[in-house]
C-alpha cells in the first residue's frame, strides 16, 4: 500500500496531542511479517534451511575465487598508487578517492573470506589514505610499505596474524608508520 492511500499513524493510547511531547513512540503494523506469509500475532518464523544451505554454497564458491579477486584489486590499488605518486600538489582528489576505495575493497574481500592479515593491511592503508599528504615523501614510504606488505601476504599465501612472516610484515609497516608518520 502506498503512503498516499494510507492513513498516517494516529495517537490512540494516551491521548497526548504531541504538541508538548518531547518523545514520540510509533508502533507500526508489521508489514514485512505479513508479506513473508506470517501474521502479526504469530511467533517467529524461519527460512527454508535448504535455501540457507544453498546460499552458503554460493559464498563457498565465491571463496574459491578469493585469490583471483584480491589479486585484481591489489593490481588496481598498485596502479592507482603509481598514478598518484607524481601528484605532489595533492590535486588529484578523485585518484586519491580511488586509492581509498581499493584499500577498502581489499579489506572487505579479506574480511568476507576470513583473511585477517590482509584485512589488517587493507584497513590500515584505508585509514592512512584519509590523511595522506602527497607532498610529504614520508607518506609515500608508508603507502608503499602497505602495498608491498599486501603483495607479500598475497604471494606468501599468509592468512592469519600468528605466522612469523605475518608478525614481521606487521612490524615493518607499523615501524614505517611510526618513523615516517612523525614528520606530520
Amino acid at each position: 500500500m502506498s503512503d498516499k492511500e494510507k492513513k498516517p499513524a494516529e495517537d490512540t493510547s494516551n491521548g497526548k496531542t504531541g504538541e508538548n511531547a518531547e518523545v514520540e513512540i510509533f508502533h507500526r503494523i508489521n508489514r514485512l511479517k505479513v508479506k513473508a506469509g506470517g501474521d502479526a500475532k504469530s511467533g517467529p518464523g524461519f527460512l527454508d534451511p535448504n535455501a540457507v544451505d544453498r546460499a552458503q554454497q554460493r559464498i563457498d564458491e565465491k571463496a574459491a575465487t578469493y585469490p583471483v579477486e584480491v589479486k585484481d584489486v591489489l593490481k588496481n590499488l598498485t596502479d592507482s598508487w603509481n598514478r598518484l605518486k607524481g601528484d605532489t600538489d595533492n590535486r588529484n582528489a578523485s585518484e586519491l578517492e580511488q586509492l581509498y576505495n581499493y584499500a577498502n575493497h581489499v579489506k572487505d574481500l579479506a574480511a568476507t573470506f576470513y583473511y585477517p592479515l590482509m584485512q589488517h593491511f587493507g584497513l590500515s592503508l584505508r585509514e592512512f589514505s584519509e590523511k595522506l599528504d602527497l607532498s610529504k615523501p614520508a607518506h609515500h614510504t608508508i603507502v608503499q610499505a602497505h602495498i608491498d606488505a599486501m603483495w607479500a601476504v598475497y604471494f606468501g599465501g599468509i592468512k592469519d596474524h600468528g605466522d612469523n612472516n605475518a608478525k614481521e610484515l606487521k612490524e615493518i609497516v607499523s615501524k614505517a608508520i611510526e618513523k615516517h608518520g612523525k614528520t606530520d
Partner: protein
Amino acid sequence: MSTGNNNRQKKSYSLHQFTILIAEDFPFMADLLSSMLREFGVGRIIVAENGRDAISRLRSSNGDSGSREPIDLALIDWLMPKQNGMEVISWIRSHKRDSLRFLPTILISAYTSEAVVEAGRDNGFNEVLVKPVSAEKLAQRILYVIDNPRPFVKAPNFFGPDRRRKDLDYSGEERRVTQSEHIKVNHER
C-alpha cells in the same frame, strides 16, 4: 536457531514478495549478497552502486512518485563513495514519507568494534551485519527484522528503532523522558 532446527512449530517464511535494496559500491560484494538473497527466494533485488545511487533508487521506489513495489528492506554498506551509509540512513530517517522513514535497514560493516554497532544503532539502523558474512548470519538478521520490529522513537536528537532491546535493571541517573505528559504514543491502524 531460527533458520535451522526446531522449526516444526514455526511458520516457514517466503520472501518472494520482498523487494530488497543492496547499497554496496564493491561489485563483488554486491554480487555475493545478491546471490544469497536469490537463494533465500527474494523476489526482487535492486543494487545501488553508491550512496547517492541508493538514495535515488529509494526516492523512485518509496518516495513521492513511489512504485507499486516499494523497497521493503535495505542492506547498506557503511563505507561507500558519493554518500556513505550513515548519510543514506540519515536521509531515510529524516524523510517525510512513512515508507522511507520507517524503512527496515541493515548496516553492513567489516568493523567488529562496539563503536560501529553503536554508531549504526544511534543513526537509526535496525540491525548490524558484521563481515565475514555467512548465509546463516544474513538469514538471522533478516528474520530478526521480520519477527522483532521495534517501535520507532522520535526524540530531540534521534529518530529510529527503539535502541533499547531489553528491559534491564538500571540504578543510575534517569536520563530518559519517562513522564507520560511528555510522551506521545502512536499506534498505526
